[in-house]
């Protein structure tokens, strides 16, 4: 059991990372990473949804007929997303405004659907819950690292606190669309290089 847990986390965080190995959940990876604060909120929301939806789907896995399982999964995921949305609106109104449709789009985030299909539907609840957390954390650290670079270079700030002084020429491109694409490509490049070396293929 303990070895299994370790393997789950190693896979989710590194070897089978949802973002840079499986290339899932790219939409939100690109969209919310222009500010660290928004990214952290988004990541927390996703972590909550993926862990609890995995748990719920796994608990119900014997009750869901396989013909309608996709629809059932989507509805379970959507219910958790609604909870996240309402909580954000109640306590973090500004950030919820800035994230706009991307909170709702957690529903179609392929990571959650992918984990539900690939893991939760055929595994007991506790490992499914851990698997959800592992994938969520794998997503989290990629997003937060991209966001740190983008906000620092693009705005000279981190968590909206001025880090770089007036001498810094802001790279406006970094907070715009193209910056997101370049950063993610760079990240994939670096991480794949490391993973390949691990496997001894380099």
């Amino acid at each position: 059991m303990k070895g299994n847990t370790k393997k789950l986390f190693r896979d989710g965080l590194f070897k089978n990372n949802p973002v840079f190995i499986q290339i899932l959940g790219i939409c939100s990876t690109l969209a919310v990473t222009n500010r660290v604060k928004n990214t952290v909120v988004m990541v927390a929301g996703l972590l909550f949804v993926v862990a609890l939806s995995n748990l719920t789907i796994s608990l119900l896995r014997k009750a869901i007929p396989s013909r309608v399982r996709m629809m059932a999964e989507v509805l379970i995921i959507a219910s958790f997303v609604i909870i996240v949305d309402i909580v954000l609106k109640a306590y973090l109104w500004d950030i919820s405004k800035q994230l706009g449709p991307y909170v709702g789009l957690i529903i179609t985030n392929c990571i959650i659907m992918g984990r539900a299909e690939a893991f939760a539907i055929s595994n007991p609840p506790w490992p499914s819950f851990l698997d959800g957390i592992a994938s969520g954390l794998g997503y989290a650290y990629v997003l937060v690292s991209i966001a740190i670079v983008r906000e620092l270079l693009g705005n000279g700030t981190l968590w909206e606190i001025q880090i770089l002084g007036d001498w810094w020429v802001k790279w406006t491109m970094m907070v715009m669309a193209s910056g997101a694409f370049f950063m993610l490509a760079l990240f994939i490049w670096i991480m794949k290089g490391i993973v390949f070396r691990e496997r001894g293929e380099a």
Partner: protein
Amino acid sequence: MTFLGAFAVFFAAIFTNNILLTNYLGMCSFLSVSREVKTSVGLGAAVTFVMAFTSAINWAVYHYLLVPDLVYLRYIVFIVVIAAFVQIVEMIIERVSDVLYAALGIFLPLITVNCAILGVSLFMVIREYTFLQSFAFGLGSGLGWMLAIIAMAGIRRKIAKSPIPRGLEGAGITLIIAGIMAMAFVGFSGMITLG
């Protein structure tokens, strides 16, 4: 005036606020399907069609059924509407035209989980579009998405035999190209501004 407004939304959705290159929606299928021009055209057409009609249907559902008490249910309702619409279209196409089914059939199930479709419906609610504007926005976004994926497929065919640094093959290089495309599309900004 409303017609002109809808027209502006339509053009803005294609060029200045391209759903893929400025809002990053529909990336998953964009990255995996843009290998060939032909399949890109098929998927693009299917997305455009579904997007235009689901945004119109969702507008009606949102404004006549959900406002004001059940607004928080919109995620579930929208996704069910999209899934049902895709299913119905698939059944109709299968009956009516074999050619069309062969061309679009395999793409339709993919579309239900394409985040761009749900994204368009959510943007429509946030930006408070009228019915006509919503339809124009859906249609324009679909065409904009199609434009981007076809352009990408064309470029990927050109670079198919080029030497690409290790680890950057596939998704990496596609993202870099998308980044350059996004920069090119920034050139359109200022033509029309979208509220």
